[in-house]
């Protein structure tokens, strides 16, 4: 997935000021940065949220012009977003939702109910989830950790080509965080081709999920890039040295 010169405004206010980013298949990219730097804006702009207006730039997913597609077709092209705050759908069971969504995403790979059930069972075992969740309503009354586990289950069942994990670590205690980190690793083992963009302002999740590449965003721009050691640096020193460097470089 290749993003070039992407500028995005929300209600007339420019948030992203020219983003260049390449996410490789099968790799883990970490997008780090302090709160308010524009990381979630990037994830919503790429997935087609109606409140986010792309004012210039391009985004391609394996050759497809992502920005020309409505939101549901971006998902069908293979882009998945694990929401920071997944919405609840009262009255719609997890099982029915997963089935409807998978049918929409992969119309040419429809599975008979028994096979679909087997796929669900297999993925839930992989993620260490209880089958009882399937009959609950989507995210309705779920704890923070349960919501994130369900996002991971969706990623496992939909097998996207690229997945953006937006603050998947936020609001989780250390056990839930470890569980989610292990889930992502298990999914990567099962489907090695998926390119991951892991958005976080906190390096903690990266202890469970080693990135191949780290991108640091501040005030709507990518200001620094590096390997996994960059995350370690941020863990140790915070964002201040990078901010000073960026401001210094600009001056």
């Amino acid at each position, binding site marked *: 997935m290749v993003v070039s010169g992407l500028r995005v405004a929300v209600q007339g206010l420019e948030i992203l000021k020219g983003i260049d980013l390449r996410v490789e298949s099968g790799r883990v990219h970490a997008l780090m940065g302090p709160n308010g730097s524009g990381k979630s804006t990037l994830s919503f702009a790429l997935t087609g949220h109606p409140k986010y207006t792309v004012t210039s730039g391009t985004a391609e997913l394996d050759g497809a012009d992502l920005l020309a597609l409505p*939101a549901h077709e971006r998902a069908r092209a293979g882009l998945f977003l694990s929401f920071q705050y997944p919405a609840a759908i009262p009255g719609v069971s997890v099982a029915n939702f997963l089935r409807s969504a998978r049918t*929409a995403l992969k119309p040419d790979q429809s599975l008979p109910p028994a096979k679909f059930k087997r796929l669900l069972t297999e993925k839930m075992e992989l993620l260490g989830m209880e089958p009882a969740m399937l009959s609950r309503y989507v995210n309705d009354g779920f704890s923070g950790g349960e919501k994130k586990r369900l996002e991971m289950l969706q990623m496992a069942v939909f097998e996207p080509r690229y997945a953006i994990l937006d603050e998947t670590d936020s609001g989780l205690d250390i056990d839930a965080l470890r569980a989610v980190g292990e889930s992502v690793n298990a999914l990567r083992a099962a489907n090695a081709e998926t390119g991951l963009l892991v958005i976080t302002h906190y390096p903690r999740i990266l202890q469970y999920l080693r990135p191949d590449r780290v991108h640091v965003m501040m005030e709507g721009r990518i200001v620094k890039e590096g390997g996994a050691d960059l995350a370690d640096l941020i863990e140790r020193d915070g964002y201040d040295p990078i901010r000073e460097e960026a401001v210094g470089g600009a001056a």
Partner: protein
Amino acid sequence: MALPKLAADEGLTRAAVAALSRQLGENDLACRARVDAFEAFERLPLPAWRLSRAGKRTLSALDLSSITPYAPQPAIGSAPEDDGAATCIVTVDGEPALVRLAGEIAQQGAYVAPLEQALYERPELVRPHLGSVVGADTNRFSALNAALRRGGLFVHVPKGAVLREPIELLTIVEGASLFPHLLIVAEEHAAVDVIERIASRANPTERLRLLCPVSEIVAKAGARVRYAALQQLGDDVSEVAIRRATAGRDANVELAPVVLGGDLVRSDAEIVLEGSGASGRVREVFFASGRAAFDLSSSITHAAPHSSGDALVLGAANGAGQAAFRGMISILEQGAGAESNLKSRALLLSPKAHVDAVPGLEIANNDVKAYHGATVGEIDEETLFFCQARGIALDEARRMIVTGFFSPVVDAIASPLAQAWLHHAIESKL
């Protein structure tokens, strides 16, 4: 098949009411009761129409003098008892078109028959209860129903008998205005589910078609009665419905009025908890589309100690549809220890749609717990986007969210067939 019309079908008059009684072969007493009810109809005012934005589309727009009730057919269609099949009664314009009784009806000593047949065969079961829950003089429309009553059903479940299969009643409005009367009597510790579906066939006649049903439920001590009325009339039929249940000591009553169709619709449902420990549940659904205007109310009245009430009302409006919903919890002085709650949620699916939700509490005893809440809103945009981000197109996402919104009531209906019918009816309005 052409149905014979009333002799005096040119207008709604005292003579027409008396003629209907004669055609039904009723005695002088029954005829007198109809004429009295007609006089009450003429005397009583039109019930208030409670929509804030109704404009001219109110009940007074119904020209009651132009309604055409049909005279009865002599023959009653029936099918042999069948142990494998559920009890099913179909009426068309008030005429029983099919009466099929499950084997358990006879095995349990229950009695199920079209009301007129029941009045003839088992007057000792019917007469003490007919009109005991909804009196003819309740309002102008109960009076009209009592004057022109035709069709409907009588269900009697004797002491201790438990019917496992729901009784299904299909009421079809074809060429006439209808005044059916449903009476359900569950004796002590009896249990029964009744599911009524109400539909209409398109009719090119210019005349007003009005459905004006009265349903009465008597649940005696320890009895359990669930009654769902699933209405999907066409937009060329109006409806004024009155449904009321009384629950005796430790009895349990559920009323589920579901209003999906009709042009002008007024529906009043009430459960009166008369015995200590009685409980009542209201599960109501409405969906006003096109130009439909609905005036709906549901009440739970606590008239005994330690009774419990629970009302959940889910509604939607699209097109230029509008609805007013009033929920009322009344706890009378003798209702010490009562617990009651009332929740209503409504979805607005188009800019012109409108819903008023007005919950009310009337409490005359301090030793009670009561809660009410009402919300009216649009489909959450973040929920829509969540679905789209999972590959689901916008229209399909809306359908999924609205279907899910109604499912807490729809999925609780006791018949899978009726559930499927309801889901389909709701989806067809999106």
